[in-house]
């Protein structure tokens, strides 16, 4: 199926590649440090080696993605989407996990269909809203576009995997914005979510509603629109308890702990607290690699996976944090530049989807380690231990680089 195309390797964005390799390298250091606290040297080697091998395999996958023409992804987007929906439904019935249904187990290998669904949804959503004749101002088209994201999102939410579901939902506003939808409509779409989050507390709810009113006033919208938006938001606020009741206990705990309404020193509160202690005690230059007492003495669970950034914060300090965030920022901005320069609307939207996915992971994950984002089980791209997440992120980078090399091509 490999189709030779006009790949221009001189156009390969080396800074994105550089950032990614460096991030994986930092991740390997942090994982080594975190795992060495846990395991006997033999197991340590095998875990560290595994991540390294996954990265090497990932380079192969990424290269393949880079070399395939975007036409190929455009053509097969709906097919991938269909497959991933089937997998998402199947995993609900036969999937494994601790009381949840998130992955298929093949011997020692775990496969999370939600990882594939992320990519498939980006491609499908991009293809639909970039298609000829699609007009997002048309309610029917809008409904289809939202449904494309909503169906896999809802299935993932059902697993339940709140974090990944949020990643999928988060694709909608930026991609629609990039597709040319008026920022006001995006505001109308996002505002109920803000209202929902703010309605755990009467005061924040009031502030949210006032903000929405201010936007409506200053943009001088017709009365009909104003009434519609306000009704939508008040309903969102009213529905909070309903949705709240459908959440799992651990999800409620996470939300409450995050909002600060519940003390949970043994559960997620303990994790966040220990993570803050680790990062805070790192100071400016950190305690040095494998010298972090929080990490080495195992005060923090899941430190090589979801909380790997606290290892960076403790052992490499604020300096290390700046380097990692800087590399991510560089990678994202370069990707946005590619999206802005790309002639093909589909390719451009795919890049925005990839950027959004990576950015969402980075912000929520790092924010979580210092207590300004909820603990939702979202790993840090390229740094967290785990093969399938690494591959997914490398596919996203592969897509960005692919588009970058062909940015002057029309599809």
């Amino acid at each position, binding site marked *: 199926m490999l189709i030779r195309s006009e790949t221009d390797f001189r156009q390969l964005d080396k800074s994105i590649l550089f950032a990614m390799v460096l991030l994986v390298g930092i991740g390997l250091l942090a994982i080594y440090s975190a795992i060495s606290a846990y395991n006997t040297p033999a197991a340590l080697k095998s875990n560290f080696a595994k991540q390294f091998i996954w990265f090497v395999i990932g380079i192969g996958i990424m290269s393949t993605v880079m070399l395939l023409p975007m036409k190929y992804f455009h053509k097969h987007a709906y097919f991938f989407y269909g497959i991933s929906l089937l997998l998402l439904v199947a995993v609900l019935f036969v999937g494994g996990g601790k009381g949840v249904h998130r992955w298929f187990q093949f011997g020692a290998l775990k496969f999370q269909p939600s990882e594939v669904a992320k990519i498939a949804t980006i491609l499908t959503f991009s293809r639909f809203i970039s298609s000829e004749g699609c007009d997002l101002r048309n309610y029917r088209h809008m409904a289809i576009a939202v449904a494309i994201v909503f169906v896999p999102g809802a299935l993932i939410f059902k697993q339940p995997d709140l974090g990944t579901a949020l990643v999928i939902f988060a694709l909608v506003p930026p991609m629609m914005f990039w597709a040319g939808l008026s*920022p006001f409509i995006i505001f109308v779409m996002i505002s109920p979510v803000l209202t929902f989050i703010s309605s755990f507390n009467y005061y924040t709810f009031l502030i949210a509603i006032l903000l929405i009113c201010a936007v409506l006033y200053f943009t001088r919208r017709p009365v009909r629109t104003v009434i519609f938006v306000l009704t939508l938001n008040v309903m969102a606020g009213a529905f909070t308890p309903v949705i709240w009741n459908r959440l799992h206990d651990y999800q409620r705990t996470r939300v409450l702990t995050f909002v600060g309404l519940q003390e949970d020193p043994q559960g997620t509160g303990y994790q966040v607290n220990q993570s803050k202690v680790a990062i*805070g005690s790192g100071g400016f230059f950190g305690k040095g690699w494998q010298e972090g*007492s929080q990490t080495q003495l195992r005060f923090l669970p899941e430190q090589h996976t979801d909380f790997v950034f606290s290892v960076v914060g403790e052992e490499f300090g604020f300096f290390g944090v700046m380097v990692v965030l800087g590399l991510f920022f560089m990678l994202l901005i370069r990707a946005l530049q590619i999206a*802005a320069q790309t002639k093909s609307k589909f390719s451009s939207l795919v890049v925005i989807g990839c950027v959004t996915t990576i950015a969402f992971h980075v912000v929520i994950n790092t*924010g979580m380690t210092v207590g300004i984002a909820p603990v939702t089980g979202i790993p840090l791209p390229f740094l967290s231990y785990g093969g399938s997440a690494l591959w997914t992120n490398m596919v996203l980078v592969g897509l960005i680089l692919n588009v970058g090399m062909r940015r002057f091509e029309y599809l």
Partner: protein
Amino acid sequence: MVLNERSKFLIYSGFLLLVFSALVIRFAYVQLIQGEEYQEASDRNRVREIVIDPPRGLIYDRFGRLLVNNQPAYSVYVVPAELKNRPEVVELLASTLRLTPAEINARIKRNSLSPVQPVKIERQISFEALSFIKEHTLDLPGVFCGVESRREYPTMIRAPHLFGYLGEITESELSGSKSAGYRQGDLVGKKGIEKRYEEFLQGKKGFRYAQVDALGREVGELAEFPSKPPVPGRNLYLSLDASLQEAIEIAMTGRRGGAAVLNCKNGEVLALVSEPSYDPALFAKPISNAAWSELINNPAHPLYDRMVQSLYAPGSTYKLVLALAGLQTGLIDPRERVFCPGYFKFGRRTFKCHRKGGHGSVDLSRAIEASCDVYFYRMGLKVGLENWSAYSRKFGFGQRSNIDLIGENAGLVPDEDYFDQRYGKNRWTKGQLVNLSIGQGDLLVTPLQMACLAMAIANNGHTFHPRLSYLIENPVTDEKMHDPPDSLKIEGINVEHYERVKQAMVLAVSGPFGTAHSAIVRGVTTAGKTGTAQNPHGDDHAWFIGYAPYEDPQVAWCVFVENGGHGGAAAAPIARLIVSLLLSQKKLIVPTSSGAAD
């Protein structure tokens, strides 16, 4: 509004910049501004303070003979976090320690402060249990043994009432005002000297700092936290003469009662024996239920210190108080003779003399020598209750002697108010006074108070609060602290009255009519007074108080044998033992003019 690619790029990257800036600010705040706070929190996490118990002060006798020693013992600790969800470990540990898993879990729950802080599960484990735990460290994660010292008693001396014992600090002791420096699970003095001198014996805890992991396991020492060595407890030298104590204990074995021997010169306690007693080592380790119930259910009450806690009627020994009261008030004329027909009729009651045939005509001296009851019945009525009570109090009866032991009893000196309260106003007769005159009736004293009386008479009214502690020594600085017993003067009794009574006491031992011939020691003039106290619990209690040598009093004593019968027969021989032992060891210095004993 249609945006071109460039403005969309600017808006999106601007949005990202905003979000990333927020993150950077947050990290800067946590790492740079709050950094120090979190550094401290991180240190608290990883650093565990480990207490090093100081060696408890040792206890010696006055000649430096070691009486109470320390010996290493092993305790078992567990880290609760590591035992959680590991019933097999708890079960193995339980079978090793001969406990049930439920007991172990209960102890963890009771003593646990935090899941990572080790909890003491059992102290003084057997050598078998210790070696089993050491060999099975891998099967017993979170279980380890620690060294602790336990008391050991290297001499034959039992004296459990005197030494007291150690026990785990209680909740209320911990919350008390003197609780500074104590922690849950600490051993503190519970009785006797161990309790009274706790503040000196205990020492100061030392601390060691170890790095621990999240499961509370020690993973190394911390160079930046220097350890503080413990300060050993002060050694205590008792005024006790171990060989004397031992000899009296042996002599008293199998009997109930005891002896208190005081140094007349300064009030130091040379021996304080209470029998029956028990092996103090019983309490050095956690006492078994069987041993404990045997102790508390024993009808002879071995837990009771008969010398300072038990109260008895002193019998004829108390005639000395009446004699002195009568002489000083002038109500007794020492030359006055009283005829003793062997009984005394008072009102409708007849009070017997202990000698059936009577003593014939007796004066004060003869009455003391032969212990004539009739003489004192009459004198008691003459002196009156008010004087009798007042002089009793002068000699410290009805009050604690202030010996440095815990739980001393004050006794009871009846007076008019007491009888009014007890029997009702005008509902009691002078018959009470007749009984009190010979140390019977409602009067209650401790044997130690009687020894103090002997000391006071021997010293012509100079007396002391008896004291067991002789010297407190700091083993590190060798600094010695000697606090002599408080000296007291019994006011208002003239020396000539003492002399008269003392001469009669010499006769009581060695005179032709004396009741205490069995106390005679060749070469020493001994003064004494026997007592044979009737009591509702069976045979008479035997008393003998006295001092020696008469010319230069150096020791005073009270010997008491519960239900021993006649004081001269049961108690006086013990006094002879005391005097002859001290004499043979050259601890009594006999004046050259002495020796007229026989």
